[in-house]
């Protein structure tokens, strides 16, 4: 009988990010090539690790991998990259691709027991929704230690003897954290926005207009309120439901548009009729509310039960409000005909 041994495959990587790495991350933030921003799953080394060096586990979204290795400057460590289909650790854990099965399999594929003499793997804490630590130990023999939430605390965590402080364990969602998430949502609205502009253009051709610059900036403002302003100002806007927060800021925007165009008491002839002004008040805040509601998916603290609860009220209200607004504006066009 012959026993064949598989070769160990270890990929050397660096803690220095290149210009291309940084451009790649920036593009992903704007939704460009975001779903194909991946590294090959497997075992990587930074520095000169030996069989006592720590094993840090991450997903194969390149941004996740880059953020981790950047923080390991001056350390000798192994990085075990799971196949999460190019998705970040937390989202992949929610889906189960950053999961017990993939971790156990990947440990076997890279033959981790031949690389390190200890029996510990360090996982990012946000991988926990996909992993049953006790099951990993049962099937692989490796003990799971949950590290900090953020990669920048990894060094301190290792120094402290694999102890994470409460601060390291807590997810934050600062203004900056929220701001960097907004471009993807904004880019995602472009397609629908172009369709809306197309329809308005057709209505103009059919004589139901005129729809013009005021409609354009009123709508774009509502999109910016829902996709950017509400997420950035999130904790300071009164109320708790995201749709409500978006509606409130959107309503202020709609009032601003109307006041600016003559509905203010001191301009004798406003630029458009009262029907159109009311139409804006019904449509614009609803657009903002819908987009702000979708930011629940980007946020770090909304529960499924909570989102469902707000949607049961918000979705019908948004649909009714937009439909009424459209009717008012079309009726206004007909009267003018």
């Amino acid at each position: 009988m012959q026993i064949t041994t598989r070769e160990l495959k270890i990929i050397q990587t660096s803690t220095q990010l290149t210009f291309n790495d940084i451009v790649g991350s920036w593009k992903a933030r704007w939704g460009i090539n975001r779903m194909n921003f991946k590294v090959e799953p497997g075992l990587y080394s930074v520095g000169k690790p030996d069989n006592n060096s720590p094993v840090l586990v991450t997903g194969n979204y390149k941004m996740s991998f880059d953020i981790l290795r950047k923080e390991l400057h001056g350390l000798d460590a192994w990085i075990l990259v799971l196949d999460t289909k190019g998705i970040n650790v937390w989202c992949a854990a929610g889906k189960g691709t950053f999961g017990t099965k993939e971790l156990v399999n990947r440990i076997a594929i890279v033959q981790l027991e031949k690389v390190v003499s200890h029996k510990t793997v360090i996982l990012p804490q946000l991988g926990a929704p996909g992993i049953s630590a006790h099951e990993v130990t049962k099937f692989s023999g490796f003990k799971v230690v949950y590290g900090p939430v953020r990669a920048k605390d990894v060094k301190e965590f290792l120094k402290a003897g694999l102890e994470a402080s409460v601060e390291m364990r807590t997810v934050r969602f600062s203004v900056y954290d929220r701001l960097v998430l907004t471009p993807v949502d904004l880019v995602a609205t472009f397609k629908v926005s172009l369709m809306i502009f197309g329809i308005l253009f057709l209505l103009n051709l059919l004589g139901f207009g005129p729809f013009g610059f005021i409609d354009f900036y009123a709508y774009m403002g509502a999109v910016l309120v829902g996709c950017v302003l509400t997420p950035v100002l999130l904790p300071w806007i009164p109320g708790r439901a995201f749709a409500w927060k978006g509606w409130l800021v959107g309503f202020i925007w709609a009032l601003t548009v109307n006041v600016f165009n003559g509905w203010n008491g001191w301009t004798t002839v406003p630029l458009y009729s009262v029907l159109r002004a009311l139409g804006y008040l019904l449509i614009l805040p609803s657009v903002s509310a819908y987009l702000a509601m979708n930011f629940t998916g980007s946020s770090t603290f909304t529960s499924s039960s909570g989102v469902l609860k707000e949607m049961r009220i918000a979705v019908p209200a948004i649909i009714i409000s937009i439909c009424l607004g459209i009717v008012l504006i079309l009726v206004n066009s007909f009267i003018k005909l």
Partner: protein
Amino acid sequence: MKNQYLKNVSTLKLKSDQCTGCGRCLEVCPHNVFRIEAKKSVVIDKDRCMECGACVKNCPFNAIEVKPGVGCAYAIIMGWLTGTEPSCDCSDNSGGGCC
């Protein structure tokens, strides 16, 4: 300023009789929902729970229950439209900010 979401919605349940006070839930919870009191885990602020399910998966004694789900409106809408369970799977299209 602190981010707070809707009150009294989380489906988190902790069965105290099955809890051994091992502290795994404190380790994995991203929002400090648990604390150890008298050698047992207790829920100190249920309204901070986002139902991620990390505690449930990592409790070796099955002492925690939560209705798992994605806290993402876009995923829920897609679920309604396609008649499937909402999932974090917006990978195939450009919509939605999640994952």
